[in-house]
């Protein structure tokens, strides 16, 4: 049940040997690299040219919390990989268990982000409108959060779909794998953001 895909079937001959949905997803992810690349470069440019404008990131960031969030997202990626593995093996129960874990960890990550935003905005007076730092920080991490939320929605739909009679491990393994690719990509974007936006702020030359 991947949205927006319908392959013209009975194309016996696939010259590249790549499933169209998978190829499509990788193309989308390549394109998304440019998307997040632009968001991240906006942030880094403003941090570069206005290093002293806005609040000091070290005084507002809660790096332990963010590290925890990163850990959570990494773990969700592990379960995602296991869920994909399970569906390929035809183990529906294992697939469901792992998918639920992915969603739980995804939700944990999101609640961490919601807490972080709340903490910044209310306790530390760092808002969306707080100059360029606030603008680029919130738009970038917020967009990432939206990606996570959409991923949870997608996996949740697949999870619910797996209880219907239409769901078969053989025919839907690719749908799960494609959703998994998306989820992992969201994870690697966070790996980049965690280093470029959070950790490197703590390095002082």
């Amino acid at each position: 049940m991947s949205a927006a895909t319908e392959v013209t079937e009975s194309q016996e001959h696939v010259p590249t040997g790549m499933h169209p949905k998978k190829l499509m997803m990788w193309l989308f992810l390549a394109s998304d690299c440019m998307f997040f690349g632009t968001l991240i470069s906006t942030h880094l440019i403003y941090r570069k040219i206005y290093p002293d404008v806005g609040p000091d990131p070290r005084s507002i960031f809660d790096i332990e919390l963010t590290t925890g969030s990163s850990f959570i997202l990494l773990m969700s990626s592990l379960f995602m990989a296991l869920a994909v593995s399970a569906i390929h093996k035809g183990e529906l129960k294992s697939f469901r268990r792992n998918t639920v874990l992915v969603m739980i960890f995804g939700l944990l990550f999101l609640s961490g982000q919601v807490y972080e935003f709340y903490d910044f905005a209310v306790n530390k007076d760092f808002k969306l409108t707080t100059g360029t730092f606030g603008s680029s920080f919130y738009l970038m991490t917020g967009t990432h959060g939206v990606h996570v939320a959409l991923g949870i929605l997608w996996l949740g739909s697949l999870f619910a779909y797996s209880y219907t009679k239409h769901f078969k491990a053989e025919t839907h393994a690719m749908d799960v794998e494609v959703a998994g690719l998306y989820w992992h990509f969201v994870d690697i974007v966070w790996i980049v953001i965690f280093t470029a936006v959070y950790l490197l702020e703590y390095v002082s030359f």
Partner: protein
Amino acid sequence: MSTATSTAPLGAEKADENRSLIGLRRPDHTTGLADWLTTVDHKKIAIMYAIFSLAFLVIGGIEALIIRAQLAVAENQLITAEVYNQLFTMHGTTMVFLAVMPLSAAFFNYLVPLQIGARDVAFPRLNSFSLWTFVAGAIILNISWLFQAANLLGWFNPIDGRSDIVPAVGWFGYAPYTDTAYSGIGTDFWILGLQVLGIGSLAAAFNFIVTIFNMRAPGMLMMRLPVFTWMTLITSFLIIFAFPPLTVALGELMFDRYFGTSFFRVEGGGQPILWQHLFWIFGHPEVYILILPAMGIISEILPVFSRKPLFGYSLIIFSGAVIGFLGFAVWSHHMFTTGLGTVGTAAFSLLTMAIAVPTGVKIFNWIGTLWGGKIRFDVPMIYGLGFIWMFMMGGFSGIMHSSAPADSQQHDTYFVVAHFHYVLIGGSILALLAGLYFWFPKVTGRMWQGKLGHWSAIVIVIGLNWTFFPMHYLGMAGMPRRTHTYLEGTGWQALNFAVTIGAFILAVGILMFLIDMLRTYRKGVPAGNDPWNARTLEWSIPSPPPVHNFDRTPVVKARDAFWLHKFGTVDQKIGSVDPGAHGVHMPSKSWMPLLTSSGFLVFGIAMAMKSAGVPLMGYLAITGLSITLIGIYLWALEGPGGYHLHPEGEHRPH
């Protein structure tokens, strides 16, 4: 005609299978409006793309004519500065996003599956979604004219300071002029329209890449692909890498306007120059998105009318790829006057010059194709030769721009206007018109009579040169672009008057072209399968092609497959794959792409109205997004659908 006469879904007994999880049935209209709204047939989608884009070509052209009428004489009062600014903004945006890009998309859609021997694109419903999303974006942009009319009649009044209703920020909308302090809700229409158009373009590009890689007929190796398909592939890659920066830039601008961020707002520390960088990171590849399909079309037409294979096939493809790749490394040459610094200016200057090499290679190879051939001057060829000549001239002024110090004089003058109209009309549009003539017999099965087509090509080329060649001199004489009038003392009157006459000649040419197309469609003589003695697979099937394209999937043995099929050795003949007992599998129609796209339309207009201060519009915008989400779910739950066709008899390429 095709022996497979039945286009209705066969096997009504399978109707249950076509029901979705929640009981929705896939539509199966075969006639009327519903057929066009729900179709997933790449050929019908292509025809709709073509019709919409030609309509917008006319609208954009009328805008240009009003602009030229205003500039015909010095200190003219025909239209106000405000309307003039709206006209050039909408002219640019319309021509780039609503005329040339979708016209290229029409060719992608029609030809790629035919040229690679496929039944349809890889994701037929997604293809339909791309079309309707394009339509939604086009409506969002152009509905601003209606709101302006309503405003003049007093029916619609935006909140104070937002009364600038039609976009007037130029097609690249430089910040901070796009901020709420300087421009009205026209900018919102512009942002949202482009954002929606971007979604449609991205979806189409993913679709074509997958199609070209995965749907090729047996034996259609990458290096046997027709050049047009190759250029489609490169263009699609450009789209998937170029549009995300635009999406982000527009998103940031939207946040500035709606939520008070300061990405480009100087009061909050934003740097307006960042917008220029992000826009041109998109904008320069976009230029190649406009021209590469045209190059592909020309590379198809020249060999056919010279009766000779394309000269340097691999080099043409390689240079196309190099142009595409370098396109991401030269964006700042649009910004030579913004103070990039010595190193930046020099680097972008040199990289820009480098692009001249692969472009030159293409022109050399086209001449090489003509060399030693037997050149037949039919209408597509006249347009095609006009393309080479005009595109070459546009390329020369391009080389002149690449020298940054010289460019600092030409930048934002009519010299630049002349340059990009030579490459966009003389390049893209001439090639697209050549392609329309070339494939028109295939699409409609009709062939034109008389010489109107020849004359249209000649009049368009005359009008083009008459209009844009003097603009070089206007630029040298210092006339800046985007000025709605000029003083008498500047000495620009004579040329401007001449240019205006030229613009009307060009318009007459386009009109002749439209009349000829319409006349041929109504009264053309039957064209036959292969009127040009052509070289590629699409000419091996009936005109117009049957809904399933190929009765039997062809097996390709060589490049220029159909030519060698006709004139080559026995082992170069096109083979075929037996479809087997279950026949040809066809995708079912669907309402869901249209529904999903309509959510964008609601969202776009509601957001602009929110900016205008109309109450409750925020909720309507959310409703729009919900419609899209519901559409996606219903789409996914629609079930696989599909039906089988049994083309009767032995319909093979002959």
